[in-house]
């Protein structure tokens, strides 16, 4: 005689109980046990279309967005390495709110001497989206607070400045804009710097001002 659905479900539950109670459960068995435990709640979530908490909904459906981050990061890294802005634009299309790609596209264009185009990307990256205060990632070693956006821009611009200096500046505009951007981002850091940080950031800004006057072609 064929078992009924109820009998099948019961035998499955007994099987899972046995699996779990013996302590020898595999990862798959644990996954299944948890999935069955949460099945009614999952159904309610799907039927309503929300858990009622936006943060929970975002995290529960995060997988697709996380895959996009990986894909866009890969594209942007390739674009930066190869000097291919088109690849970074594709990354931006995948993740429009992720301002890191704007700075990367700006840096590539700046290195190519396209200062006006670079400016658009830097401006969009700097003024669009959120700039969260972070408690780590200090620009100044040993200190603790900085805006991630400014820190990221500083990292990207410092890297570009090094490359452009090594190759020789293509134009005065390229040099001045690079230093101005660096000074501005360090200036933002000064605005939120702790009393311990401020003199160090001020010293960096003064150094940049002096280098701009000395190195930028007349």
């Amino acid at each position, binding site marked *: 005689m064929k078992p009924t659905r109820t009998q099948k479900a019961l035998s*499955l539950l007994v099987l899972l109980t046995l699996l779990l109670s013996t302590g020898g459960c595999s990862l798959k068995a644990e996954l299944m046990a948890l999935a069955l435990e949460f099945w009614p*709640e999952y159904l309610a979530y799907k039927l309503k279309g929300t858990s009622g908490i936006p943060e929970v909904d975002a995290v529960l459906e995060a997988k697709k967005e996380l895959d996009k981050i990986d894909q866009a990061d890969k594209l942007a890294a390739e674009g930066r390495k190869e000097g291919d802005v088109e690849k970074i634009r594709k990354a931006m299309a995948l993740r429009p709110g992720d301002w890191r790609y704007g700075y990367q596209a700006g840096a590539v264009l700046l290195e190519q001497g396209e200062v006006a185009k670079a400016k658009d990307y830097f401006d969009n990256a700097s003024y669009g989206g959120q700039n969260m205060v972070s408690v780590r990632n200090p620009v100044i070693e040993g200190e603790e607070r900085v805006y991630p956006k400014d820190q990221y821009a500083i990292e990207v611009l410092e890297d570009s400045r090094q490359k452009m200096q090594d190759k020789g500046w293509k134009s005065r505009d390229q040099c001045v804009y690079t230093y101005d951007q660096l000074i501005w981002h360090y200036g933002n850091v000064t605005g939120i710097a702790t009393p311990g940080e401020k003199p160090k950031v001020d010293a960096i800004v003064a150094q940049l001002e002096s280098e701009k006057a000395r190195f930028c072609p007349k």
Partner: protein
Amino acid sequence: MAGTRRRSGCRGCGCFFLLLVLLVAIWAALIPLRLLERVGLRDSAAGRMLSNPPDEEAAAELLAGMQAAGLATKGVRLYVMPLAGSEEVAAIAVLDAVQGFGADVPDQDAILRYLKELATGEAIDRLGITRVAVTYQDEEGRALLTLTGATNDIQDFASGRIGQDEFLKLLHANIDPAWLLKEVRSETD
């Protein structure tokens, strides 16, 4: 006459039934199937709230903490995401079988252990992480199960302030229904 009345009644029933089917179809397309999000007419909650860049350094710090706690980190991808439009910061671990997760994990309560270790990591409060999630992704790249909870709740469970039954009620889950149904069918056959 009687025949006419019956035909008219049937027509009414048919219309009502059709309307009902139509309403159910619209509801199914909009809510469970999320058609508007699939065709790009509306952003999903994830698309909206995970639009900020991930905090890579925070993720590296947490991953190092997990390693120090003795958890296998091969195939574990960790993202720390400040949620846009919210004060919350989420740490999301993807246990990725494609990248080799699973070979060296302890057998018992692996998923819950990752959740606990993430939420009780030394850096978690300093990094301001308010929500923790663990997703298991199988060899075919499907997210089979995602569990998420508030950091405080998981810390309460880890310290024994609440029991497992109460704790599980505080978690939220997403499941790949196709996978679960297939597994259930293969177990019962």
